[in-house]
């Protein structure tokens, strides 16, 4: 069983880390996971598994992570507080750790009304920051929330998301600081298109000395088409695509738009590398895992470091 | 006893049900003669007429201690006025305790054995001799004393 998170090792080692995202299937077939796993193997350090993303029912994130473990990969278990109360969340954390899952990403989750179960009761017993605290308590204190001891503490590398593009900007930095204070080890940001805004956020974070306490992985998402760009800009909350990027996508013929998306993505990574305090990248190629390999390669992020298993 | 209270400069606000024995105007005045400024008497038609606010306001403005004497249990003309008073006093005690004031500064005596107003007042005065001047009023009091001294000069 894996003793340590690959992602943690990479970061501890001082290397640029790379993670990617993998959405579980809307069905019970494990093959879908394995297929995506193979596409990402060797290209990234760890693979995020989304948790009923956009509130649409999918295979559980925990189970999918288990499948990735069995495939010898390092998964990042995404956990949203929307669907489970603190009892379920803590028990899932214990189960995950037992299965060798070392990374968790603590999230609020999209509101249930957006998905295919709009009548469901949203739980939101904890919020994402509280979940970070709970996970940290379980790991560092060896107790559940409230103080009852655990027979064995989970081993966890705790992550959280950050969105530099939502308003108000000041509050975004405050929230980042709070997540760090709560105990997060790494941050994966919302996908970056507006580099100016991102830099502004990073500057503010740096002013407070935040990057010293956490590994920030900048999120990127290759645009498949100008239509997708349009959709993401207009419909997906927290996405900020500047006009020149929109124009650039629109200025390219349809059949070459995918390629242009990858180009943009690679350029973005290159520019992000310049920003002080960025410790890696989180590539969210939504249902387009094939693109990850090319992006990583073109961004000079290969090969991924490997460590001997102890 | 009155001397003790003079030394302590304790002021008692005493509310009492008009039904308790020997509580007429004359009885009241002899008490006032005895205790001087240490007692402020407020006859009320029924102890249930008293509300926590009366007690609080008394402590806020002029009294170191506020007490209520009710008629004996079961003898209220309004049936449960004295029981209401008891509960209100209890609640008011809790309130002042919650801000760090001694609960003893508020009290209730449910009259028994037809004790006279004077006797009840004496007993209450005896009960409160150990209390220091109220921290609520002490700043004022300090000023007042200063003022008096000035006058004496």
């Amino acid at each position, binding site marked *: 069983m894996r003793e340590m998170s690959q992602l943690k090792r990479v970061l501890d080692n001082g290397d640029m880390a790379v993670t990617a995202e993998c959405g579980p299937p809307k069905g019970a077939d494990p093959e879908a996971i394995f297929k995506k796993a193979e596409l990402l193997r060797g290209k990234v350090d760890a693979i995020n598994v989304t948790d009923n993303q956009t509130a649409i029912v999918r295979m559980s994130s925990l189970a999918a992570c288990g499948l990735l473990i069995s495939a010898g990969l390092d998964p990042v278990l995404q956990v949203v507080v929307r669907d489970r109360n603190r009892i379920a969340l803590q028990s899932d954390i214990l189960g995950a750790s037992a299965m060798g899952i070392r990374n968790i990403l603590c999230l609020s989750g999209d509101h249930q009304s957006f998905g295919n179960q709009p009548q469901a009761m949203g739980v939101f017993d904890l919020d994402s920051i509280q979940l970070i605290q709970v996970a940290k308590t379980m790991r560092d204190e060896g107790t559940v929330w409230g103080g009852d001891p655990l027979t064995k503490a989970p081993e966890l590398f705790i992550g959280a998301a950050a969105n530099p593009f939502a308003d108000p900007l000041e509050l975004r930095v405050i929230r980042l600081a709070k997540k760090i204070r709560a105990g997060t080890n790494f941050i994966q940001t919302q996908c970056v298109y507006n580099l100016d805004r991102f830099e502004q956020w990073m500057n503010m974070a740096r002013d407070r000395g935040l990057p010293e306490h956490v590994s920030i992985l900048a999120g990127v998402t290759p645009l498949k088409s100008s239509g997708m760009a349009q959709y993401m800009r207009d419909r997906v909350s927290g996405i900020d695509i500047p006009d020149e990027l929109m124009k650039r996508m629109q200025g390219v013929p349809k059949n070459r738009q995918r390629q242009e998306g990858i180009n943009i993505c690679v350029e973005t990574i290159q520019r992000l590398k310049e920003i002080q305090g960025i410790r890696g990248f989180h590539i969210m190629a939504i249902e387009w895992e094939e693109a990850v390999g090319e992006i990583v390669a073109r961004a000079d992020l290969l090969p991924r470091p490997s460590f001997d298993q102890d | 006893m009155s001397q003790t209270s003079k030394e302590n400069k304790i002021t008692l606000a005493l509310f009492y049900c008009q039904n308790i024995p020997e509580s007429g105007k004359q009885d009241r005045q002899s008490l006032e003669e005895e205790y001087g400024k240490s007692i402020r008497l407020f006859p009320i038609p029924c102890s249930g007429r008293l*509300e926590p606010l009366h007690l609080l*306001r008394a402590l806020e403005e002029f009294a170191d201690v506020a007490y209520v004497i009710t008629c004996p249990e079961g003898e209220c003309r309004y049936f449960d006025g004295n029981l209401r008073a008891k509960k209100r006093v209890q609640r008011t005690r809790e309130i002042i305790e919650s801000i760090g004031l001694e609960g003893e500064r508020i009290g209730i005596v449910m009259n028994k054995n037809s004790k006279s107003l004077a006797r009840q007042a004496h007993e209450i005065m005896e009960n409160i001799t150990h209390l220091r001047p109220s921290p609520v009023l002490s700043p004022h009091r300090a000023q007042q004393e200063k003022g008096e001294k000035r006058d004496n000069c």
Partner: protein
Amino acid sequence: MASKYIIDTQAVPNRFEVLTQSGIIAWEEGCLKCPVCVKKQCVYGVYDNRDLDIRQMIDSLDNQCMNCLRCVQGCPKELIHKSINPEYEALGDSHWTPYVIAKSWYQAETGKIPVSGAGYSGPFSGPGFDSMWTDMSEIVRPTRDGIHGREYISTGIHLGKTPRHLTFTDSGDLDSDPSFLVDIPLPIILRIPPFGSLGKNTIKGWALAAKKLGTFLALPYEMIDEEIIAFKECLIPSISPAQPYGDDGLGGVRLIEVLWGKNWKAITRQITETHPSAMTAIRLPLVGGIKETVLSLVNSGVSIISLEGTSNGRLVDDNSVFMRDTIRSIHLALVEHGIRDEVTLLVGGGLSMAEHVAKAIICGADGVVIDLPILIALECRMCRRCTKELPCPVEIDQAASSWVASRTINLLGAWHNQILEIMGAMGIRDVRRLRGEAGRAMFFEDLDRNTFGSLGEVQEGYELE
């Protein structure tokens, strides 16, 4: 008196919350907070204006309630009750009743006469002046409307000896000396009350009131200081024969009173010599056998006699006898001796309401002296705590002199109007004509005996219901 005598009154607010007969007890526990709460429907807005007066711990529910009982009768949980206010019940004593005190407060506050609806509510009759009814005229004895009508009703009296006749010089000028006659427009003289928490401003306020009313304030000589002497033309210094009397600084005072005592004659003589322009009066305690004394005083030339009963309207030497009949007998004796107009009889002690003025005059007084009413006008509760050196609950000594004056004027204004009412009803247009007019009064004892005296017989076995 050329112009009509009107006392200008103006509402003067109380300094302390008043005490009223009954208050509201409204339990809060169990209140349902009905959307249409009886408290919100109060016609008088009593609950909307609710406030707690800390000085006396008086909830405004205690004194603003007008007793309509609609809230008591409407609350679905029956959480609202009424109660008699023990503080009100404890006001005063059997003579200075809570009713008398409360109505006096009202008059001093508003300057208005007490008016109420729904008929008379008091006892059938009462002690002293309360056992008298004044007459009224119906059809055969015309009068004019006292207040709103066209005829002037005079309440003025003069103090001093009325000359039996006037003499004139050959040239037709008046030869008689009118200087020993002082007019006051109201048959009422004020006197410093026997007790009270009085301050300098209190005395000054009363002096000011006396001045504005055109009457006098009688006060102990010792109370006169530099400030008060400024009001000299409306002061009556009272000089006690027990005290040494020398150069008094009373120049310009119009009337000086000498208290009854061993030396009264010597002192009176001394005063007459020092102040030839001042009139002197003798103040006598009203005792059982006083009639003879009065007769001899008048015969010896005393022109103003002030008779003083106890503060509850009785004889000084017999608390069971009300002064009413003694005044009557003195008056009748003076009439019998043909010397009634040689003297002005003033009566004081226990006069508490406007009607007592008229009734005392009907019994034979020329005018009255009042003391405690002007103290009650200042919100006094007649608790007499001041006599035991306890603090005054309404801090009378702290009141400004202008407030004292206005309250006193208001009270007297209301009394004046009531005297007009009662005189108008009697068809009497000059208060001097009311003096001794016992025929314009009905006396309880006579009426009751005449009417019911024969209704005493009950035979054995008969049942009363």
